């Protein structure tokens, strides 16, 4: 459990510090420091074992099905990073205590910082590569939160989003790479993967995997050309920069190179990509750093440059270069963290970071200045400081690289140039800030910072010196252990020492220092030269790219989702046409094998009327009234078709529905314009005609293909069991109320819901009530023609009688609850038409909502009733009883179910039609009063 505790403690710390809002700053800091200190203690405790060559592992099961487990491993490399993460983390927390102003929330910063710390610890200690990615992404999230700490600043938000986008994108590439890697090896376990170099490098996926993983590493460690997010991340508070952008997050990318060095390195591809990227970054960063007026900007580019250096070292594919890389990781962390903190102090004390304003700080804060100058010297690679040592090793290793053949001299030369620039910007940092005359309009009067704010810098600078002077004494163990892990269980012979004698690397160093000072003295010309160059602003490019991408997306979306239903429908119909038409072409023969029935006069006339009706509806579609009349012909003919082809129930249903539909359409006609304007172009009409006839032909052909084919279905079962099992002779009805009663239950729900929905639509409906018809004729004066009113009184009881008749016989003969319900509804609608809805409401107050609910409830409870007989839902029951005088009668639960249907239909239909009617009735009442 020890390993798990290290990140866990830091997570705990994050949670604890988030809750210290009510405490004083010191208490909050102390509490926050507690957990990482314990964790650091634990890791120190584990160090001897690791130094002894042991690798400590811990595994917990989490998602075994996906090969993802919680697995930790502590080897030399991990230990090195754990030390760095925790130690610098502790210093940063301590430093932040003094850095943050009263307005800034301390718990929030601490909490985020420690969340970040957790993520970093997780990365370096992962023994499962998916888990590694898990923590990798967590660093992206927590760094987003940290960079946007001052969320009200626009540059903080933008910087955070940029960092998240770039590192997040890299993270996605990394994930892909890791998954591929895992797929090649067959495991996500790091132990297994690290031991599978041959398999991986022989795989056809090796190149892709390598590139994807390197993308992850390069974006995170701000390698050229993904570097540009880093300077903008400087919008974060300085402690955050000190931590994330010098010691940890950017190092995660470096860590990744080190971690996968044993599996991925050693190939030419690795060399070319990694070393060239590193070299480019090294040079580019060093060069740009010189021109930054912002202190943190300078440090940011310096960081980029140093990360390039480390990357280049890893790319060189030699063992000693790797050792040098690891060594430089440590050194860079110490001097860069202290420089950031020093910058923070200067910023804090002067209120600006602009080097053009900040001058002569030596006078105001000599102690801080000394510390900063030592750290800067280390950055420049001045002897007696740690930076010198690793840079010396770096120069040495560049000389050993032969892969470029006759061009091999390029690397050491460029390395020296970069070294010179790094001396130059370090010189600028020292001279321009602490000397160079007097300050220019500083917002604040600077003086030395609080005593304890300097402590972390003191510690780090001390480290720079100790390592620089007694290297082997201080870093040998950890360096050996780390190299051991990176090189895959093998550490090369090396000696870290201050003095190696006069050799080429020393000469290079000398060139770099003198060259650097020369550059700095001649900086005026360089600045002029730089200003004459076309400005390549990476951020602007990024912003512009994003902006044009968004604009492009909006244009595309706007063009596609243009809100035109006709287009949406057209697309859909085309898809339908394709789906239905394509297989049709594959068929050998459209027509099936059954004998055709000859056409008789009855059918011919029916079909003619149907077709004429349909075509007329289309022809007159702009004169809505006429097309409405035409479509009723179609409806009538459809029901005649049903009668013709042995479906009396369908015919009855179609007829009743038809009338209600017509009434509905009449209502629509009243409230909608009565004519359609001519607005389709003839091209449009042609196009529509084309697709509609194509669809018609396709559907017609399918229909023809179907009905001419022999056929077997499950229906014999229904015919055989209707009477014996369902108690009725009308098989269709028995299917509806028994075999498939569940469909019917759903269907009445649909009807009920539709009615509710319609009532909903009508609430607060502002009506357009035309005062005249389409030809401008005012409406007739006679509201309720007397003869109609008179006859409708007679028709109501008659219709109810018919309805009752239809209802009762449904089970055995054509009819049933639905048809009966519609007849009843229509009978009432006739009353509405003849007398108006006020007249009706005076006589009858029905809450249709309750009627619908009762109807569904009856049907539902009939179905539930069977539970009491231990049968599944809707199991029907029927029996025959011999009653004196009356004779044998059949009682069936299906009839009650059908009653439910009946009631729902009546309620829903009346609700649909009457609620609209009542709406206008209210409106017309007022009209009458006027």
């Amino acid at each position, binding site marked *: 459990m020890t390993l798990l505790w290290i990140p866990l403690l830091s997570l705990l710390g994050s949670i604890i510090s988030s809750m210290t809002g009510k405490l004083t700053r010191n208490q909050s800091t102390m509490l926050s420091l507690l957990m990482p200190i314990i964790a650091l203690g634990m890791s120190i405790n584990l160090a001897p074992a690791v130094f002894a060559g042991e690798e400590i592992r811990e595994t917990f099961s989490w998602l075994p099905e996906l090969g993802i487990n919680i697995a930790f491993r502590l080897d030399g490399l991990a230990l090195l990073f754990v030390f760095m993460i925790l130690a610098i983390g502790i210093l940063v927390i301590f430093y932040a205590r003094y850095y943050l102003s009263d307005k800034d929330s301390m718990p929030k910063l601490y909490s985020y910082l420690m969340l970040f710390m957790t993520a970093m610890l997780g990365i370096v200690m992962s023994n499962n590569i998916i888990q590694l990615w898990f923590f990798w992404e967590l660093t992206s999230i927590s760094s987003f939160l940290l960079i946007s700490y001052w969320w009200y600043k626009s540059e903080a938000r933008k910087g955070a989003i940029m960092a998240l986008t770039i590192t997040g994108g890299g993270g996605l590439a990394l994930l892909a790479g890791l998954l591929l890697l895992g797929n090649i090896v067959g495991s996500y376990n790091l132990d297994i993967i690290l031991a599978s170099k041959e398999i991986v490098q022989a795989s056809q996926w090796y190149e892709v995997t390598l590139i994807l993983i390197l993308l992850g590493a390069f974006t995170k460690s701000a390698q050229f050309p993904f570097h540009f997010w880093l300077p903008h991340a400087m919008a974060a508070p300085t402690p955050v920069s000190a931590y994330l952008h010098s010691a940890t997050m950017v190092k995660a990318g470096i860590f990744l190179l080190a971690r996968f060095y044993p599996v991925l390195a050693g190939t030419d591809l690795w060399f070319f990509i990694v070393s060239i990227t590193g070299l480019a970054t090294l040079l580019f960063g060093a060069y740009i750093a010189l021109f930054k007026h912002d202190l943190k900007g300078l440090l940011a580019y310096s960081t980029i440059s140093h990360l390039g250096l480390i990357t280049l070292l890893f790319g060189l594919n030699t063992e000693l270069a790797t050792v040098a890389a690891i060594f430089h990781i440590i050194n860079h962390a110490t001097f860069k963290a202290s420089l950031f903190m020093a910058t923070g102090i200067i910023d804090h004390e002067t209120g600006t970071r602009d080097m053009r304003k900040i001058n002569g700080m030596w006078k105001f804060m000599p102690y801080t200045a000394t510390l900063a100058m030592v750290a800067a010297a280390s950055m420049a690679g001045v002897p007696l400081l740690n930076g010198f040592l690793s840079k010396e090793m770096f120069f040495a290793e560049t000389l050993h690289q032969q892969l470029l053949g006759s061009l091999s001299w390029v690397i050491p030369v460029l390395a020296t140039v970069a070294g010179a620039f790094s001396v130059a910007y370090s010189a600028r940092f020292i001279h321009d800030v602490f000397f160079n005359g007097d300050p220019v309009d500083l917002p604040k009067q600077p003086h030395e910072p609080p005593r304890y704010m300097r402590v972390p810098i003191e510690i780090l600078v001390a480290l720079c010196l100790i390592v620089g002077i007694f290297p082997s004494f201080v870093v040998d163990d950890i360096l050996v252990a780390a190299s051991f892990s990176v090189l895959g269980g093998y550490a090369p012979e090396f000696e870290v020492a201050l003095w190696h004698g006069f050799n080429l690397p020393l000469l290079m160093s000398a060139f770099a220092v003198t060259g650097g000072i020369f550059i700095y003295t001649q900086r005026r010309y360089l600045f002029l030269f730089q200003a004459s160059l076309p400005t390549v602003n990476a951020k602007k490019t990024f912003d512009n790219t994003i902006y044009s991408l968004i604009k492009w997306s909006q244009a595309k979306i706007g063009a596609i989702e243009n809100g035109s239903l006709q287009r949406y429908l057209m697309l859909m119909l085309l898809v339908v046409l394709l789906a239905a038409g394509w297989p049709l072409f594959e068929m050998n023969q459209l027509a099936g094998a059954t004998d055709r029935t000859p056409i008789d006069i009855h059918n011919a006339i029916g079909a003619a009327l149907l077709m004429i009706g349909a075509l007329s509806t289309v022809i007159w579609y702009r004169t809505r009234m006429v097309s409405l009349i035409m479509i009723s012909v179609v409806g009538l003919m459809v029901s005649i078709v049903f009668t013709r082809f042995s479906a009396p129930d369908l015919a009855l249903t179609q007829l009743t529905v038809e009338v209600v539909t017509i009434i509905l359409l009449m209502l629509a006609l009243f409230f909608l314009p009565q004519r359609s304007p001519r607005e389709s172009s003839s091209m449009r009409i042609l196009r529509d005609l084309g697709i509609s006839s194509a669809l018609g032909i396709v559907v017609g052909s399918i229909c023809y293909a179907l009905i001419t084919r022999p056929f077997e279905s499950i229906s014999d079962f229904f015919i055989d069991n209707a009477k014996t099992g369902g108690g009725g002779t009308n098989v269709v009805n028995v299917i509806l109320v028994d075999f498939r009663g569940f469909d019917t239950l759903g269907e009445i729900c649909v009807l009920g819901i539709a009615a509710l929905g319609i009532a909903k639509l009508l609430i607060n409906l502002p009506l357009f009530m035309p005062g005249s018809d389409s030809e401008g004729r005012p409406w007739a*004066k*006679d*509201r*309720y023609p*007397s*003869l109609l*009113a*008179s*006859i409708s*009184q*007679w028709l*109501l*009881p*008659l219709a*109810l*009688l*018919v309805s*009752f*008749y239809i209802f*009762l016989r449904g089970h055995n003969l054509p009819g049933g609850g639905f048809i009966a319900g519609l007849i009843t509804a229509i009978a009432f609608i006739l*009353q509405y038409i003849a*007398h108006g809805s006020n007249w*009706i409401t005076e*006589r*009858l107050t029905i809450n249709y909502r309750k009627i619908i609910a009762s109807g569904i409830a009856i049907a539902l409870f009939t179905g539930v009733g069977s539970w009491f007989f231990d049968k599944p839902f809707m199991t029907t029951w029927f029996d025959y009883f011999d009653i004196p*005088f*009356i*004779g044998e*009668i059949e009682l069936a639960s299906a009839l009650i179910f059908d009653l439910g249907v009946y009631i729902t239909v009546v309620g829903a239909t009346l609700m649909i039609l009457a609620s609209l009617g009542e709406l206008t009735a209210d409106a017309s009442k007022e009209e009458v009063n006027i």
Partner: protein
Amino acid sequence: MRLDTRFKWLPAPLLSISLFFAWLILNNSISNGQLVLAVIVAVVIPWVTNPFRVKQPRVIKKGLAIRHLFLVLYDIITANFQVAILILGPTKKLNPGFVKVPLDLTHTTPITLLASTVSLTPGTVSAEVYPWQESLVLGQEPEQRYLLIHVLNLTDEQALIDSIKQRYEAPLKEIFQC
């Protein structure tokens, strides 16, 4: 003229009888079960629909009513033949026209019956009853009602009016005693 029935529970006896028979006819059966149902229907439906009835004069002279019914049926048959001949004959010889028949009847039901009769019988179709309810001041009764009819072949307007009044309106007046 009488507007109310004798039995509260049987608001419309004539309707009930019609429904009773209609039920039996529909079911094509006079089994005991159907008889029971017919009675139920005959009682329940008028009772349910009673709120929707506007009180109208009742049939007093039942015998006369039946006789009149047969007369009308006979006229319908002859009317059909006459109209068939008119239709099939040359159209140019037809002299259509609108005629306004002044009415003695005042209630809707008898007027409806008259209008229907007119529509079903020789060459005439009821077109309108004047005046409309809407053109009257609220609650006021019209002084004189008219039935507007369209005649397919109008020869003698006054004779037509007389024949309608005498052949159809007068019996109705008597049947309903109004």
